[in-house]
């Protein structure tokens, strides 16, 4: 068995008296497609925030790519290869789409190259390629405010991709999108996965999760209650109870 890319041990996070995450354990192989589901308020986004460094977890530890990530600020985790998209797209509103992509290129790819920075022409080329990948190349000079919701999500993914991640955490990249738009994003994520990027997909749209994931994890009230192949997990009585009730 190959070593795990991501190894989470007994992860815990509290907000005051409220336990948002309770001893979460999970491990992820390189190249895997993991779905993460759970009812509203079950701790999915908190887990993402703890993994990506936006929040500090209180207990347990996160190992990524052979390194302990505990206490590392978010930007260092991104540089080490863990990229995320936000549930509500957070584009850099005053910058063009190309410049939105340029920022992670300047701050992650260039930072990894130790002085051998990308030449300006190379940078422009990469911005173009990434926008091409998500189908936004013809809008490279536009501002994010001119985009539709689905385009905004694509920009969010392109920006995460620009950091050349090993692991991509897509936090509800499809919420509020139409049927065909969901397919668009799914196709995009699958294409990224085929390039060897491990993907964690957090999603409410079951159709998307079921078709994309190789493995499914269910969070309920900050606890992991199921972990396994999607078909099995959705038949798990605990999961059914959490979603539908007794």
């Amino acid at each position, binding site marked *: 068995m190959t070593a795990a890319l991501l190894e989470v041990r007994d992860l815990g996070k509290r907000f005051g008296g409220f336990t948002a995450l309770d001893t979460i354990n999970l491990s992820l192989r390189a190249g895997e497609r993991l779905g993460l589901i759970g009812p509203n308020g079950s701790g999915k986004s908190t887990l993402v925030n703890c993994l990506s460094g936006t929040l500090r977890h209180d207990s347990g530890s996160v190992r990524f790519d052979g390194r302990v990530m505990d206490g590392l600020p978010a930007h*260092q985790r991104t540089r080490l290869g863990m990229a995320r998209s936000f549930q509500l797209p957070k584009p850099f509103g005053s910058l063009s789409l190309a410049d939105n992509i340029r920022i992670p290129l300047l701050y992650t790819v260039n930072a990894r190259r130790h002085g051998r920075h990308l030449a300006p022409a190379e940078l422009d080329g990469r911005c173009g390629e990434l926008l091409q990948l998500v189908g936004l190349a013809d809008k490279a000079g536009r501002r994010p405010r001119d985009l539709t919701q689905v385009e905004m999500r694509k920009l969010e993914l392109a920006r995460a991709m620009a950091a050349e991640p090993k692991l991509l955490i897509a936090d509800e990249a499809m919420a509020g999108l139409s049927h065909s738009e969901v397919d668009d994003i799914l196709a995009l994520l699958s294409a990224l996965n085929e390039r060897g990027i491990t993907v964690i997909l957090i999603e409410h749209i079951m159709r998307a999760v079921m078709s994309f994931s190789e493995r499914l994890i269910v969070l309920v009230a900050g606890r992991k209650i199921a972990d396994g192949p999607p078909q099995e997990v959705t038949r798990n009585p605990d999961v059914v109870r959490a979603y539908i009730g007794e």
Partner: protein
Amino acid sequence: MRPATFWLAAVVVGAAFFGLSLQVPNQYYFQAGYVVLQYIVLATAWNILGGYTGYVNFGTAAFFALGAYSTVALYKLLPLPLPVLVMIGGGVSGVVGFGMGYLTLRLRGAFFSIATLALAVVMQTLITNWEFVGGSRGAYILRPAQVPLLGNYIIYLFLVMLVLSVLAIGIARSIERSRLGFGFAAIRDDEQAAEAAGVPTLRLKLAATTLSGALMGMAGAPLPYYVTYLDPASGFNLAYAVNSIAMPLIGGMTSWVGPLIGALFLGTVQQLATVTISSALNLLIVGLLLVAFVVIAPNGIVGLFNAFLASIRERGLRKHWKRAGGDAVRRESPR
């Protein structure tokens, strides 16, 4: 334009401006010009933190006065040439900027601004109670009447401030399209997203406060020689803080041109008002202009100009489509 070319152009424009200024026979021109130039430095410095990075600093007067008071302190200790004093003033304010940044940058939005205001009050209290630099009585500085080559000392002060303006604008312009500038813009737009994109936000914010503070200190260092009598109330005058916010706001905050235009415009209007109407009217003018600009041109003069350019381009394209038969490829105008 490449940064090196821009620096060269800025120096040439500065030199030409100085050459032209020397033709003005009236000394008052230099007296008033110094103030306008000083505001170019202050507005540009403020904009590095406020416009580029999005952190509104109400404490300009503190950094400015610290530069001025380091000159006063050194004047009493050992006589140094003005350019050295400028460097030292910049250094002191830069260090304080770094310290303030370290203490306050975890605060966002209005809370950061309030903290900078508090810093200004604390600094003023400290200086007012520091007997060595004159305390609340103030300090007198004797300046030489003449300097070699230039003649009157005020021309020398004018030149020093002109050099600082060129320096500040050159720095601001170099930052704008650099890695640092993109990092600043990312922080301004969304700090969480910036972190997620690999931008070390805390380090960059510290760089911005340090640089901004240092430039403000440099602008303040020659002040004692300009006024020859400096007391805390005038050094920490609210007008410095208000003006250095108003000028980028009126000119436009996203590029180096904005603070320059704002400072030239507002600074000149204020100087004119001072001699023609009354010096007390200055802040009223600033207030009225601010209200007018927030309503009419929220992106400042530069924003107004860009919108105008965009509308011309749009019109041109529309004509082009019509000629091309209407449904030819509908090219979107950039922005």
